[in-house]
């Protein structure tokens, strides 16, 4: 092995001195091995379906603390690498170096740092690959459909089974059920079940064009009960008149007929995204109204068919899914069927827990005398059966999220910029040495302090706009001077000072470009503020228009800059001291 390594080193040293010096091959080899281990780790981390029971399994790298381990490995790798890197420096020794070779050094530093720190991607890719290969999209959709169809029999609490949830048949699809006693107007048209009172209202709508009209800002009970936004139009729904629904209902008691909530909304469904939900009526569950209509219809049809075999088979299939995902439960299909099958009007009078009862749980329940009639009813009829359906929900959610997630989408920016900045710092340290590096840090700190002090004074003395402009242009002038010295005045200024400017230019050039974009955008934003609301919609602001592409543009620009700047670096190195 040692002989093999020596042989490769000899070859690299003789053929590719830059690669030998930077230990690119070894660092990449070690990185790839570690990436592979992380990838295998990711691949195995979700083998047990129970690991999908918690939310955001995609973030397992961070949530499991694995990132600490990754950071530790990265630090060890980079420290060892730096020790080897600093053994030789052809640039410092005045060995022939072309511009391209100088640029190559930087690129190699970047590649090494990126590969030595980005274990997140391998681990998450492992996770994604495992989920993609283990869970077929069609199967998952079938399981979701079955879970949603069975969800009306979950019997977790009473809320979803109250009459107010019913959305099928007509007129339940277009009415609003008021349950707050303070807002119930006419006692004659109310319905009571134990301590609960219900009153039904028809709805009227108002449509607002968001681009032309002002938004509707409500804060009273007369406000809309929910709203629906479609492109530029928002439809507001208001309570209109009380209606009598006696002829439409079999019973006012909680019933499986009333269940209309979809257990799991697949990300394959898109139509519910049109909604923006009011926060005024947080007590009421108005989300996914259209979905509720459909779900209520499906549930009602199932119950109307009243086919015990069909229901039993459905329960049995669902329990199999629970078993498949290792979701904890203690109920059999028969026991469950016995609890829910009330063919007369499918009233619910047995409840199933949504989690395993804790030992001595009953000791912690508050005083029974403080309970409402409804709560007493629920408490009395809650069985010892349980199904942790939220775990199944999380499992579906995790699978769908992992399948649809582009793992490189956002976090790649962080890793790229981290590698870029660290590579820049190592690069300037290698080029100009320790002393200019330290002086550069000191100069930047002093300049930042001066700028901050100036900003404080200016903002106190003038208005915000002037203050922003003043600081932006102040930094721009300082930045321009720093950039200009190594390019135009290197031979007239002390080499040490040029070195400091060179260092700051290399690390700060992209911030300089960002500052220019910022200044342009500030001017544009201020101009846009002078326009009318209609004109403002099309007002162009550079930084907003670039969005996330700013990161990509600056990143590419950084490399281009360093390629061309390598000539300045060479010129600086050749300067004599004064």
């Amino acid at each position, binding site marked *: 092995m040692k002989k093999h390594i020596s042989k490769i*080193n*000899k*070859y690299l*040293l*003789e*053929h*590719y*001195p830059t690669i*030998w*010096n930077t230990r690119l091959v070894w660092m990449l080899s070690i990185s790839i091995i570690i990436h592979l281990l992380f990838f295998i780790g990711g691949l195995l981390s979700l083998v047990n379906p129970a690991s999908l029971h918690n939310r955001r399994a995609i973030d397992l790298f961070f949530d499991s603390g694995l990132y600490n381990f990754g950071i530790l490995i990265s630090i060890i790798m980079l420290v060892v690498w730096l020790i*080897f890197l*600093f*053994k*030789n420096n*052809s640039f410092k020794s*005045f*060995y*022939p*170096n072309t511009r391209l070779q100088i640029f190559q050094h930087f690129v190699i530093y970047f590649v090494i740092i990126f590969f030595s720190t980005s274990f997140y991607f391998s681990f998450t890719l492992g996770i994604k690959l495992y989920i993609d290969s283990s869970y077929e999209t069609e199967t998952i959709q079938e399981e979701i459909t079955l879970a949603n169809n069975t969800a009306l029999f979950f019997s977790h609490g009473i809320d979803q089974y109250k009459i107010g949830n019913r959305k099928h048949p007509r007129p339940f699809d277009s009415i609003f059920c008021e349950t707050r006693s303070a807002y119930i107007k006419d006692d004659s048209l109310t319905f009571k079940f134990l301590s609960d009172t219900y009153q039904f209202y028809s709805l009227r709508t108002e449509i607002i064009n968001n681009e032309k009209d002002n938004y509707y800002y409500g804060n009273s009970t007369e406000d809309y009960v929910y709203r629906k936004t479609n492109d530029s139009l928002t439809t507001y729904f208001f309570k209109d008149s009380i209606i009598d629904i006696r002829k439409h209902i079999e019973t006012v008691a909680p019933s499986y007929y009333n269940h209309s909530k979809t257990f799991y909304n697949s990300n394959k469904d898109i139509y519910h995204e049109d909604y923006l939900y009011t926060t005024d009526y947080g007590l009421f569950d108005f989300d996914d109204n259209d979905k509720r209509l459909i779900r209520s219809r499906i549930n009602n049809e199932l119950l109307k068919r009243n086919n015990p075999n069909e229901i039993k088979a459905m329960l049995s299939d669902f329990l199999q899914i629970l078993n498949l995902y290792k979701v904890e439960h203690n109920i059999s299909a028969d026991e469950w069927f016995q609890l829910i099958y009330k063919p007369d009007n499918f009233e619910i009078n047995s409840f199933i827990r949504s989690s395993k009862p804790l030992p001595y749980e009953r000791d912690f329940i508050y005083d029974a005398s403080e309970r409402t009639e409804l709560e007493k009813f629920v408490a009395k009829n809650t069985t010892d059966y349980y199904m942790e359906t939220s775990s199944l929900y999380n499992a579906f959610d995790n699978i769908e999220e992992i399948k649809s997630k582009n793992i490189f989408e956002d976090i790649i920016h962080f890793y790229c910029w981290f590698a870029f900045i660290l590579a820049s710092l190592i690069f300037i340290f290698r080029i100009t040495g320790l002393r200019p590096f330290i002086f550069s840090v000191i100069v930047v700190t002093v300049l930042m302090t001066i700028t901050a002090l100036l900003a404080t004074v200016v903002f106190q003395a003038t208005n915000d706009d002037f203050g922003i402009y003043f600081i932006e242009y102040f930094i721009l002038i300082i930045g321009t001077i720093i950039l200009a010295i190594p390019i135009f005045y290197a031979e007239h200024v002390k080499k040490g000072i040029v070195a400091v400017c060179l260092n700051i230019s290399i690390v700060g050039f992209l911030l300089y470009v960002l500052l220019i974009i910022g200044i342009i955008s500030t001017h544009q934003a201020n101009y846009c503020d002078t326009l009318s609301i209609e004109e403002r919609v099309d007002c162009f602001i550079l930084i907003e228009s670039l969005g996330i592409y700013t990161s990509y543009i600056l990143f590419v620009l950084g490399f281009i800059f360093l390629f061309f700047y390598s000539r300045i670096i*060479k*010129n600086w*190195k*050749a*300067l*004599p*001291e*004064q």
Partner: protein
Amino acid sequence: MTELQSRINEILKFFDNNDISLGYRKLLDCIIDTQDLSLYEDAIELTDWKEKFPEETEEIIQRSKSILEKVSKKDIKPYKTDESTIKVDVINKSYGTNKFSLGPISLEIKKGDVYGLVGENGNGKTTLLRILAKEISHDSGDIVYNFEETPNSTYDLRTKLVYIPQRTKKWYGSLKDNLKFVLSSYGVNPKENETRVLMMIARMGLWNYKHLKWSELSSGYKMRFELARTLLRKPEVLLLDEPLANLDVLAQQLILEDLKSICNSINNPIALILSSQQLYEVEKVSDKVIYLENGKQNDEIEDKKDTDAKLIIEIDSTVEREPLEQSLHHLQLDKLIYNGGIYIAYFDASTSFSSVMKSLGEHNIEVTYIRNISQSTRRFFVS
């Protein structure tokens, strides 16, 4: 007789006189001049064998002669140019008012020449070398560099100006890898890299030290490795600041002889400027000597060489002043100066050095060291 033939004859004489070490070094110099890698490999193999069996002198000589035979068949074209590699024209350097200033200094050096830069501490030797290496700027005057290939940038020029400071930096990693890194950085054919490095190691007498770590080397060998690294860069100019510092007398002589020999290559001569306080040793190998005094170039050396013909002798003796003075009095002694450690005796030009030694012997004067410094810059130091 060609230059090569004359050198081969010289080497043969060394071997005939059993001066193996010197002959072998000269042989390696000739082999390096051939630039023939097969001969390099022969030399490397022989060096390896020689280090393993140092007692086998007969065979070493025989095998050396055999390689020399091959060398003699090569055609080495001597380097010929009359142009100066560096021409310095009245340069000055000042470190602010009332501080040290160097210059005016003018000099010219050609390839193959060795320039000795002498002077006491703080007289500007290092400053001058660093100015020549373009490490520091000068205030006025011109320096013209004339290389085989015209540098296309200042950085390119500095890759050709090889300067070794007095305190060399530590090497990290394998010594051989450091040497190979130089060649690969200079774009030497990968197939030749190992051979050329081993040849240089052999030439600099580092064969048995190539596997050591930097920290395990003595100062002398560190300097030799530094020179090896430098010479691999095929410099046209070599600027050495106090290369003899921290070396014992033998090592000093050896390294100077090597430098002189290497710089005097038939086809790749090097212009060498070195600073030192070891006057005797430097003067021995230098073609020219610059004496710096308070930053000024002392031209007395050149001027006085022919005109001032006084006999000046440095004597280290334990005897009292009186008996010494009596023993020399009849030899037209002008003055006798005792500086606490040694005596400096000034005689009339008609007095010969041998008559002084004869008189000291006749008067039974115990002498531990005696040297004629009439033509040496040493006389400026001791006067």
